[in-house]
């Protein structure tokens, strides 16, 4: 079964544990500037929203890459950057409609979420359940359950 990251902004508090976990996974450092998942604060709305690559099925970044440095991980479905192959041309950063793949000056390569090979560190670190790693076919399940709970069967049968 394929899984995907499920983001629920309503549960996010903006603590950035996910960003630190991501940075630790890839850099052995808590520096949030290096995270592949970002939490955005919409201050005047009182909203915190985590955002990262959604692993498009037909991935613009993968198609755009001139040196085939972005490959599909058949196990997780993640589109992963092969660092030794990447030449840092940044065409993928232009191609991605969501801004989720970015250049890293420190390495001269691009980086994006690779689902940590199937054990996403951000989901593990999230203290509120705002980031979970769930059945890719059923990311709507919790929302459906909530709506199902509101169904007034008594009124319908009365």
């Amino acid at each position: 079964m394929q899984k995907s990251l499920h983001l629920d902004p309503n549960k996010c508090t903006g603590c950035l544990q996910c960003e630190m976990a991501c940075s630790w996974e890839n850099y052995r450092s808590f520096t949030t500037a290096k995270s592949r998942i970002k939490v955005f604060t919409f201050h005047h709305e009182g909203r915190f929203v985590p955002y990262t690559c959604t692993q498009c099925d037909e991935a613009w970044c993968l198609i755009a890459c001139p040196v085939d440095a972005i490959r599909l991980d058949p196990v997780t479905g993640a589109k992963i950057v092969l660092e030794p192959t990447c030449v840092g041309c940044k065409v993928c950063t232009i191609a991605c409609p969501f801004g989720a793949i970015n250049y890293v000056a420190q390495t001269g390569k691009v980086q994006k979420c690779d689902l940590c090979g199937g054990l996403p560190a951000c989901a593990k670190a999230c203290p509120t359940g705002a980031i979970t790693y769930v059945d890719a076919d059923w990311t709507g399940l919790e929302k459906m359950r909530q709506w199902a709970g509101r169904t007034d069967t008594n009124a319908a049968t009365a």
Partner: protein
Amino acid sequence: MAWTKNVLRVNLTAGTCTTEPLNMTWAREYLGQRGLATKYLVSEIDPAVDPLSPDNKLIFATGPLTGTMAATGGRYSVITKGPLTGAIACSNSGGYFGAELKFAGWDLLIFEGASPKPVYLLVTDGRAELVDATDLWGKTVWETEEHIKKAHLDPQIRVAAIGRAGENRVLYAAIVNDLHRAAGRSGVGAVMGSKNLKAVAVRGTRTDAYRLADPEAFFAATEAGKKALAANGVTGQGLPAFGTQVLMNVINELGALPTRNHREVQFEGAQAISAEAMKQKRPTDGKANLVTNGACFGCTIACGRISRMDPGHFSVKDKPRYHGASGGVEYEAAWALGAANGVSDLEALTYANFLCNEDGFDPISFGATVGAAMELYDLGVLTKEIVGFEMPFGSAEALVKVAELTASGEGFGQEIGLGSKRLCAKYGRPELSMTVKGQEFPAYDGRGLQGMGLAYATSNRGACHLRGYMVSPEVLGIPEKMEPQATEGKPAMLKAFQDLTAVVDSSGLCIFTTFAWGLSDIQPQIQAACEGDWSGDRLLTMGERIWNLERGFNLAAGLTCKDDNLPPRLLNEPAPTGPQKGAVSKLGEMLPEYYRVRGWTTEGVPTAETRARLGV
């Protein structure tokens, strides 16, 4: 080694920024943040210095756990000599700024001298420069942050700034970071203003700024810590759901909620300004004051309040910039802006709190000073002619007006900006100032909670709830229940709290963790992050060392045991209602015992033996 081992020294007079290595001998004795920065300050300034002169210094300090995955590991402190108290000032803040400073590669920023013109410091990783801030002088904290991010085309910069209150030397001006988190107390923002330093802007992207001593042990300890926070009723449920405001009704029912400048100990409007009220839908617009809770960096508790005002409220009707969500009232602010003045209009409190964030001043000292002014008005000492408008207890209109004037530094706001001690002295009624060492009380009555009374009297930075939170044993039963009116055992318990608090404040962690964590939870996190021996005993001795270092500074600055006192109202006027009815503070019973357990003379001076034992 979770230190970056770098100190940035900024000479504002000369306009220079220089790097020096962290004094690791001191780091091993004082850990970081509060303790370490105090050691630097005490070693570098004359304790008798005028706090607002160029000879005072201002230190921004992170701890070894700042910028780590330890829960709440995002704190920084600002240490200086405080203009409100003339004592050591050490104000702690959360938000994201502290961690960013660490990621840029700095443990401490030391500001000395005073700039001839307004400047801000821009730190981008290892690079630091002073930037002209002439155009920013007169701007609010919120405008300043927006301007700096735009000027450098970098929305990821974190900013700590003063507003107009700091520029105008409001004696309780704060330094505000991330729009609504503040190094709030004792006037650290006025010191920043006196140095013509408008802001510190930081962007940190280094992955090699510091290293954990033992990553495996660190994750084991911090994950256990997070589990404990989640499982605890206060940190796992009460604080995220209700914020510190969870206390409003509890403390009121206990008869320890100072009301109308401590004339009373219960407020009839407490419910209307409580956490529960913040969650209720307003009849006017059908929305609740509270929008959501929010976390500081790395915090898995998330007690912060994010509020949105009723756009039809009289205070903001024609001011759309206050119609969006921003930092809402925490318990201490709701008390000071509300109960201390008899004001029960939650929207007016929220507006005043927004102004405190926007122009950088401490809502506790501000609200309490307004309470004193309202009592002077009630007594006919202050009049409409002096104030410029009517100022009776309970007037939301007066609170709003005086908050605006204090923010802008106009009219009667200039007198409110001096704080309650100077205001009451000026009008010939010094006994009406509800302060210790010149700093206003927070939200617990020292008659109702005897241990808090002692905590206020002995706090090194003037009246304060964050130096030894005796509310924990006296109300919450943490670590053990102590009856509010009992005095026995409280001096020793307070000493233990004060010493442990000094440890937490030096680590980069938030003191709120201690509702769930004891030393045995904190110690392994510090030990795993830092090289060297950080046993529990060593840490507690360090906490005691820090406390005595601060005490020594205050004594050298001219304070004496006479300053370990409470206003006559708390010593002589019995609590008029509630479960603590008839109580006065029994400070006289507790203080000699406190000095004894501290190893101080009967005059409150650390003995030679105590100093030698602690190495201060």
